[in-house]
Every structure is written in C-alpha cells, then in structure tokens.
C-alpha cells in the first residue's frame, strides 16, 4: 500500500513536522507493508500518481484542492493533516483564504489528521461527521542506559554549581499570532522566580533568524536574565539539549498554540532535559514528567529528585509507548484507515464535471491541470490572469453576469443550452460563444472600466454563487473548486 504525503516544497522535509512526524512514522508503517513518501506538490502529477492514500500537508493552495479531487475521483482515500490551526479564528479577516481553503478541502477529504482533540473539534465545526484521527508525534528512540547516565550527570552538575542551564528552542514568530519569543517574554515570571530562589540561570534561545527583528530582540531584552541567542539548526538543537538541564516551554492558550503536538516536550525529555511548561497545558499527556509551575521544580532540584529522573525512567518509557511510540501510532493510523467509512453515498457519485473557478489571485498550474483532466477552467470577473480559459464570466453594471464559452466548452454544454448559444467572436486567438438569455444585450451594457477593490469585495460572494449556478445549469451538476490565493478578505461564498 502506498501513502503519499503532499508537502509544499522540497525544503519542507527539513521542517519539524515532516522530520519528526512522517520520517519517524514511515519506518513503522513499512513494517506493516505501507510505504510512505513525501512529495513536493510542484512536482506532483495527480493524473499519474500511484498511491492509495494521499495526505495533504500544509499545502494551503488550489493545487492541493485539485490534486485531492483528482485522486479522490481516481479512487484514492484522501486526507488532510491539520497540525496548525489557522482555521478557528473566525473573526480574523487575514485568515479568510485559509478558511475558504479548508471548507473546500474537507468536502473532498475522506479523513483528517491532527494533534489534539481541540483541533479535532475545529475540524468537526467545518464538516460534522468527518473521520478525524488524532496522531501523536512519534518520539525518538529511547536509550535507557544513555538516558540514565545523562540525567544523573546533568542533575549532579546542576546541584554542584547551583546553576540551571535553561533552553528554549523553536520558531520564534508567526505572521499572524504572537508565539515563540513573545511567549517566553510573557511567561518569564517563572524564570524570575527561579533566579530569585538563589539558583543561577543560564538561558539559551535557539530560534529562526526571521524572529530576531527589533521587536523580537526587544522582547528578549525584557527577560529577567540575559540570554544567549543563536540560530536554530537541527544539530544546534541536539547539542543544546545535551548540555541543558531543563527546557522552558511556555504555551499560550490561543487556538494556534493549543493545536500543536507534544513533540517539543517529547524531544526535550528524550534528551534527558527537565521540562518546565507554564500556561496552557498542551503537554498534559506527559504531566507526570513536566513541571507546570516553577516552585515544584525548585523544590525537586534542591532535593535532587526530579520528575524525569533515574527512578522514573520506566514510567517515562511507558508514557512514551502510550503517546509517542512510532509502532503503536503507525498501527493506530493503519487501523483508522481500515475502519474509514465510505463517504461515497454521502458525497454522491463522482461528479461528471469539474469546474475550476478562478478568483482574484489564482494559480496557473491548476489551470493546466484541470484542463488536462477534462475539467473546465473558468474565469470570473475578479480574475485578471491571461490564461486560455474555457469559460469566461463578465459582469456589467446592474448585476448582469454574462457567460462566454470556448469551442471546447461549447461541446460540453447541455443540449438545451447549446442550442441557444450564439457566436460571440474571438478573444485572443480563440473563438467564443455567448450563452444565456441576456447574452445578446451584453455588449451594449456598461462595464465597470476598472472595478475598484471595494466593489469587488462587495460583489465577490454573490457573483461567485451566480457563476457556480450558471455553470451547473449549463454543463450539468459538477464539482466546483474555487481557486483563491489572495490575502484580501473576500467573503467566503457558500458554493
């Protein structure tokens, strides 16, 4: 059985999600006879791809929608992994396109995957009843003897020097949400209290360079202890974790942070570090080994008996087996897929037509792809790309929406509609036909010369709905995919 995970770029393979989640899972899945491969979406051809299961990962664009649709129609089971939450902030207009994307994607998908139950509820709110699998990130392999030695050594060194080497690692910023460095700064009371207790603190921050702008560095400067800041690398992270006694991993309670997996805490613990995680209890499954407030950490350090200690290794191993074993996670995932309900009845028979409706900002690759699979590439009045569209919609003042079809699309019109089509003329080198009752008046009506953005914002949902209705009335029922990649806050139409 072949699983393909569609990723946004080749470089994404170095990202924690791909590196930890899928790389660790693939070994265990192969034992079950499942091969898992990560494929860059720009190199992926859904018409020829040979896979039984397709998982869309972080590809928030129309190519993913189209790939999912084409493979679904070819009989593959299609799922989406949602390990980031850009979808529950319904009031935030910056994220409209993400919500528009997910709404469409979930109508195509057979299943979804996420890290937390909170995120599963978000998915439920988009498509009630869809099968959702909560996948824990597989932990790294544990070497108990090494872990035992490392923890003993770190504890002895911390007590001898009365010094806690503290680490924070991760992505320091996000274009939409205050995370990373702002969490470290906001929850730095704990570091203050640790220092006030008389224990010296050495803090190291490993993060991405982008986050270290003036604002990020300003937040670092407010920390109660001076911090060493370095750029994150995988090797740097390993080295830091091998040196540090504890990791400080505060989590805020916004949806984006609460949807994250256990992997940072798991990585830190598996490297023999204590974990102090204040704020939202994201790592509740590992609570027995995690400090939720600094007081108990200080007490335990003074007593030389830490939560992750030489006497709790076996419990930790059991916890890892329960929530982070790659074998059990792989087995549970395989079982989930076996039990996956058949949605074909709910979704109806595979639609005969596929309409790719281009919005304000679209993707040329999808245009070619939809035409290659016999679908129609549809230009709406919002789209300004010069592509060889099959169907063109134009608006006129007064709400009139006129439809022009190419020779190719003319052949696909329903017989009753086709008989009414009249010659329109050439657009570029291609011949077009007018369709619809009002088409004859179309050229006589006044067109907005350059529709302003405010006008487009206002008309977007209603025109999109009209476009889809007209397509279905002219070509028959089909699946319409809206291709919109603009960050502008277009209202999401119900198609």
């Amino acid at each position, binding site marked *: 059985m072949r699983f393909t995970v569609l990723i946004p770029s080749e470089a994404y393979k170095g990202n924690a999600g791909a590196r930890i989640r899928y790389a660790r899972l693939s070994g265990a899945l192969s034992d079950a006879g499942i091969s898992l491969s990560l494929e860059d979406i720009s190199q992926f051809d859904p018409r020829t791809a040979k896979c039984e299961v397709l998982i869309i990962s972080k590809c928030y664009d129309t190519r993913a929608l189209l790939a999912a649709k084409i493979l679904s129609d070819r009989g593959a089971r299609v799922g989406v992994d949602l390990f980031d939450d850009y979808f529950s902030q319904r009031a935030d207009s910056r994220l409209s396109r993400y919500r528009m994307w997910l709404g469409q994607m979930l109508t195509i998908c057979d299943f979804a995957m996420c890290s937390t139950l909170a995120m599963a509820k978000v998915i439920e709110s988009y498509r009630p009843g869809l099968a959702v699998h909560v996948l824990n990130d597989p932990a790294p392999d544990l070497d108990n003897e090494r872990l035992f030695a490392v923890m003993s050594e770190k504890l002895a060194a911390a007590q001898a020097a009365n010094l806690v080497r503290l680490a924070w690692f991760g992505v320091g910023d996000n274009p939409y949400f205050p995370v990373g460095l702002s969490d470290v700064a906001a929850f*730095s009371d704990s570091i203050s209290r640790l220092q006030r207790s008389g224990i010296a603190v050495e803090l190291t921050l490993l993060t991405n360079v982008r986050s270290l702008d003036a604002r990020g560095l300003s937040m670092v400067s407010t920390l109660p202890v001076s911090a060493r800041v370095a750029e994150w690398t995988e090797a740097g992270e390993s080295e830091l974790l091998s040196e540090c006694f504890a990791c400080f991993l505060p989590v805020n309670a916004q949806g984006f942070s609460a949807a994250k997996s256990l992997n940072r805490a798991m990585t830190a613990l598996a490297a023999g570090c204590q974990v102090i995680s204040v704020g*939202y209890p994201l790592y509740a499954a590992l609570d027995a080994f995690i400090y939720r407030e600094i007081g108990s950490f200080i007490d335990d350090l003074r007593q030389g008996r830490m939560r992750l200690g030489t006497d709790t290794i076996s419990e930790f191993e059991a916890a890892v087996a329960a929530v982070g074993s790659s074998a059990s996670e792989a087995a549970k995932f395989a079982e989930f897929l076996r039990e996956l309900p058949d949605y074909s009845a709910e979704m109806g028979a595979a639609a005969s037509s596929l309409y790719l409706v281009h919005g304000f900002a679209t993707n040329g690759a999808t245009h070619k792809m939809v035409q290659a699979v016999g679908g129609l590439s549809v230009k709406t009045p919002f789209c*300004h790309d010069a592509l060889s569209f099959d169907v063109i919609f134009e608006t006129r003042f007064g709400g009139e929406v006129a439809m022009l079809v190419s020779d190719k699309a003319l052949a696909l019109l329903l017989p009753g509609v086709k008989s009414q089509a009249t010659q329109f003329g050439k657009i570029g080198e291609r011949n077009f036909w007018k369709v619809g009752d009002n088409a004859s008046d179309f050229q006589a009506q006044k067109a907005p010369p350059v529709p302003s953005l405010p*006008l487009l914002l206002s008309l977007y949902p209603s025109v999109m709905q009209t476009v889809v209705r007209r397509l279905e009335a002219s070509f028959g029922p089909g699946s319409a995919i809206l291709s919109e990649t603009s960050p502008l806050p277009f209202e999401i139409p119900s198609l």
Partner: protein
Amino acid sequence: MVGNLLGRTTLIRELGDAVTELGNLRIAALEEDILAARANARRQSALIHALETEAKAADYELSGVREELKTVKRKYRSVQQILEQERGRLKAARKDLAKAQATVAYYRGSLPWRIYSSSAGLMTGLKKAGQRFFDHPRKRQREQPLALLEQSTLFDRDWYLETYPDVAASGIDPAVHYLETGWREGRDAGPGFSTSAYLKANSDVAANGINPLLHYVEYGHSEGRGAPEHAAPRFPARRRRQDFGPAAPCVAFPSAPEPFSRWARSGKIDAGTRDVLQVGNDVGFFRDEAIKLGVQAAIAGLSDLRQPSRTMRLGASGQSGPAAMLDAWYVNSSILRTRWQAQGGSVVVRILQHAAGAPVLIGEAFVSDRLDAIDAKLFNPFFPLLFLFADCDGAIIGWQSLVFPSLCRGGLHYPELVLLAQLSGVEGGVTDPCLHSEELAGRLQLMLAGEHGPLISAIEVDLTEADGSGPLFQPDFQNWLREITGVAVTAHGGAVAGDQRRHLATAVQILPEERAGNKAGRLILGSDMVPSISALVAGCGPLENVRQSHAMPFAAASMEHSQPATLLFLPRSEWPSSGVGRPRAFPRLESASSTLDMPVAAIRMAPSRPLHEAELLVPVAAPKLSVSKSSAGISWLLWPNDWREDDLLQSLETIAAQTDAGPSSIVFVGSEPAGAGRLAEQLFVGRVRSVPNVEEALPAIDTPLAAYVGPNVILHDRRTAAHLSTMLDEPRNATASVVMVTVEKRGKGWLVATADAGTIPTLSGSERTVAEQSKDAMLLWRATWSGVKPPRDLWMTRAKSLAVCLSSDRDADAGGLHICSALITASYSSPPQGGSPPLSPPANAPHRALRTESLVG
C-alpha cells in the same frame, strides 16, 4: 574378392577424404560468412548507435524548443495582457477626449467664449504688432533671464568653467550654456546650487520644465524652498565598500580625578556595640532613635501592606531626606534601576523588598553623582520597596518607600504616573513615583481602615480573545493583586466551554477574601488590560438602589515606553451599557455607587504591530459580527453632481448588495444622473426619486432611516447597512457611522489607510479627527465610540431627525450620540473630496464624545 574388397576400401577412404575436404571447405566458407556477418552486425550496431545519438540530440533540441516556446508563449501572454490594458486605457482616453471635445465645443458656442475669442484675436494682433516693433524678440526673451542668472550669487562663472571643461573648450558663455542646455544636462550652476537636487526636491518645477536656478531666484526663495548645494561624488565609482578606521574622539571634557571614597557594604559594617539593623546581614546601624522607629515601622509595612496600621508607617523620613529620587525605570522585568540626588554630596542607598516572609536586601550602592545608578533585583516587580540611606560607615540616616514600583518607567502602571503628574497641577507635573505612591497608599490605608468601602470588590476578565499571556494571568501580578489589593478576579460571563476557555478561566482566577461583599462594584476588563492602582484604591461613595454599568477611562500604552500613552474615556452617563457589537476596548464598571470619578480605571497593552490591510477592510469577518436583521427601510441620499459617474455606479451596486437590512430607496438630490439613474431604477425598482434640492429631499423620504452617502463612498462590506441600522436601535444614538478607509494599489499589493473616523475632542478642548493619528485608529480598532461629529461622508440617522441636519444653527442639539463603529469599515473609491458636505448633523458637546489625551512621560 580380396582385390574387390581392397579396391572398395580404397574407394571408401578416398571418398572419406573427399568428404572431409568438402566439409573443411564448407566450414571455411561458413567461417567467412560468420566473419562477414559479424562485421555487418558491427556496422549495423554503429549505425544504430549513431542514430540513437542523433535521436537523443533531436530530443534534447526539441525539449529546448519546447522550453523556448513556453517562454515565448508566456511572453506573448504577458505582452497581450499589457496590450489589453493599454487598449483599455486608450479607449478610456478616447472617451475622455471625446467628452473634453464636446465640452470645448459647448463652451465655444457660449457667449463668454465668443467675447473672449474676439478679444484674444485682438490681443494676438497687438502682440504681432509689438513683435514687429521690436527688432529681436528672441534675443529679448533670453536677455532678461540671462541677466537674472548672472546677477545671482548662486551662479559661479569660474566654477562652472572649471568644473565643466567641455564648456570652457567650446567657448560658449557659461551663463548662456547653463540657461539653455546646462541645467537640462544636470549640471550645477555653482558650488552653492545643485540642479538635480533642486529638481528632485521640487517635482512641480521639474514637471513644468522650468530652469531650476531661475525658479529659485524668482519664486523658490520667497516661497521658502531651499537651495541645495552642489555635491561632489562621494566615492570613486568602483568603490563599493567604505572601510572605517578606529573612531576618533570628537569631544573631550577635562576631568578631575575622582576623590577616593570608602564605604562599607552590607555584612561588612563594623557596628560595634551599636544598634544594628539586620536584614539577612548587617545592613546598617542606628544613631537616631526616631529614625530607628521609622525604619522598623516601614519594614513592618513592607511585610504586610494590607494591615492598615502598618501601611500608615510606610512613607519617608521627610521632604528634606538625605536623598531624592531622580529617576527610576525597569531595565528588564526584574531589575529596577534608580538614580538619586544626595543632599550631602554622597550617600549609600540600600533597597529592601519583602520576600518569602521576610525583608530582603535587593540592591545597594554608593551614590556621589547624579548619574550613579543602583539596580534593585526585584523579587516581585509590583511589591513595595524601601530605600534606606546610610553614611559610608553604615549609619542609617533616613528612608524612603516606593509602595507601587510599577508606576516607574517601563512598569505596567507608568501611564498612570504620567497622568497623575499631569493632574497634579504643578507646572511640568510631579513625576516622582514615590510621592504618588504615597498618596495612593494613603487612599488604600483609608479604605482598609474602613473609612470608606472599596469602589471595586472584584475584577472580571473578558476572555473573548484571551490567550493567557497577559499580566492578569501571570503569578507575580496575581500575587500582588491578592496580597496587596485583596481584590478577587474571575472570568467574565459565567460558565465557559472548551478546554482553552476552561484553562483561561482557571488561570485568571484569584479568590482572596471578599472585599466588602456585594456592595462594591465589579470592574470588567479585557484580557489585555490591567486594573489601575487608582481604581483598586478608590473608595465608593453613597450607594444607590440601581446598579449601573459605566464605560471607564483607560490608558493605552505600547511596549515602547518612549512612546506616549493615550488616555481615552467615553461619556460616562450617556454611554449605552449594551453598546453595539463588541465594544471590548473599554473597561466597564458595574456599580451602585455614585462616586465613580477616577483618572483612569485600567491600562491596556496596545498591540505594537500595524494593522494588516485585510483587518482595515474587514475588522470583524463574517459571521462573527452579529447584526440584528432590521426591517426598517433606508433612504440613501446622494448628490450625483459631486460624483464621477463610474464611482456612482459602483456605489449604487454596493448599496444594492447590502444584506440583512431593510429595503433601500435612492434619493438623488440635484440633477438626476442619466446612466446612474437607469442603473438605480434597475437595482431599486420603483424606489428611486430625484429632488432638485435638499429642502425638497426631506418630504421625499418615506423610510424610518436615512443615510447620507458622500462622493466616492463605497460600502464594500455587505453588512454595513444592517450594522448602521442596529446601532440606531439604541434610542440614545442620534447618528450611526463606520470608519472610512482609502484603498490604493501599490505595486503588487494594496495600501489601505484610515481616512475618516469622525471627530473627537481632547481633554484640553481642541477637536481633531481620529484619522489624524493612525495610532488612535489602532487603539479604537474593533471598538465603538461616540464622537463630536461622525465621519463626513457616510452616516445614518432617523428620517425624522434629518431636519436638524439642514439647520444652520450651530448650537442645534444633535439629539443623541454620534456613534461610530470600527467593527466594519467603508471605503473611498478615489481620494475624498474637500469642502463642506451638503448635509451634516450638528456637532455634539465634547462631554458627549470620547475624549483622548496624549500622556507624554
């Protein structure tokens, strides 16, 4: 017989030999054939190889051609697109030209034109006669400017010839050269005038092709325009990097050697048999009994501020103590740095704070200069501090308390200090945090002593957009609230659902002892706010029977403490308790007490990031903004003469696209537009009227609501009408409006900016538009407030109130609040026009509007 046999045997042998020979011959022939076939196969193989190579080359070439074709196609499409755009522009230009020609034709037919043209003909005749009269008109045209140029001190003839040897070589007069061609070639007139810099700085001059030096001499100088100097090229063209040597001292002050000072650190004080003060170590000794008693009381006050008897003992050793605080600021979240002025020239300062059941020494230093700083390593950035002053031997000579250190610069309550300083009535303000702390501590003491009940017994935190990272969720601030102020904190809105909300509700909760039961009020804060100290120590006045909800003033401060904070407060008595949408930006006090006066109720941490264009266009995305479905019809009043036709058409489209609002009617005031009129009839069938003037517009309105739409306004959000109608559900609101933005294409993106959000007064009484300060737009984003005037070009009112908008009486009553919402915005399709609008509601009194003040620390 034997002979026969022998002969036969011989024959057989011969026959065998012959067969063998024949076989050998055959084998040889076959071997030759094989060799030939092999040679042939090799040839064929070479041929095939050659063909394959050729095919590969052809394939490669083909793929190259395909790539090329792709590129060409792409370029073709791009060019086609540009062509289409240009065609569109050409078409529009032709249309404009035709219009212009029609206008010209119209004017040419008019009487004034005919008079002008005949007089112009007369003038032309006179001019020609004049030209004939003078011998060399061209020469005259040149001589006057040339004289101006030569008289100018900025034109340097020698410098010009030296700088431009080609001019010198040509023998042309330098002034003539500069006048006619030199400036166009970017040459400078002299070392004191840079041609290119002047043209760059004065685009109007550049656009009109005027000689820059002449322009400067004749106009620029009197208009206050600068004359930029000639700048020689800084570096040789090839040099890309500038290497700097070590910095050279640019200024040096004579310095006297520091006098040697010796002072005893804590723990090293030789107290002998004297009265020693121990805080962990020996921190000093007493020579004076009164000071001893004062310091001991102050230390006791540190340990439990909520004991009134102890609180009273905090304070200072008098106005003329041994040292006065000059400045205090947070270096980071746990270090407070202070500077002092020692009265006797020098003093040792020691800082104490209460921690874990006992006072602790958290900093000490010898101060002999105003620039000497002392760092206090705080156990809690909010808990009181005690400064002990001692001589170099360790004898304690005075003390000073700082009860609320968070009033210091960089602290959470710093904007409150700035406000208190401004309210102190002293010129320049009293910014000493110790002094204001003492005053606030005094109020706390009175409250704790039972002189009056607390105004606030509990704080409720609105968790709507909380992420749990604000100070209200952090242990240090919570400890301070619990131990110093004794106020309870809970989540606002009762039961909460969801893991995140449950966590937040638990994380924010503080349930210390009850503060005066239910009599006192509840302060409702956003999760990004903290209560002010003034609010926490405020006493309540006589209680009334009715518990009311009031919007309270708050200060919004950015993370950048050098930036001024802004104080905002809404009209207290008239602000509707329910508000509209989610007025989350304002703290609210629910209280039955009539004494509500306090300078500020909360401090809000203002976001430092700029608003994204999407957030300005749609502050609250659907479906999160609740609007009540209104059936009240709306008449939209437009003055078509003020509009460009395309803008008017677009605006009508967006009015027609409004959802969840009552039926819309269009009232055109002035002449009815032809194209727009037809479209309006098509969109609003039977509900379009035209009236000649505004006086006749009123009777034409048959809907409960009316809205004025100024030129170029587009309702880009389809919920605008419903939102405005919802605001007018509240009888106390006279008009409803939304924030106006401008939208401009910039490169590949869009630039969206706040254009008009109405007018609000400052505390000092002056009025200004909200959009004048973009910071205000950020502070009021997703909030609702009332202003002195609504935005100029879009507002809605009740039809029956419209008459007052026509009144010329400047003192006319607005009849309620001008409420403006930043939950939705509307936009201008092109920049807003100036001038007075034909219709505007009367301005409100300042006390009925949101007032702001900049708190400059």
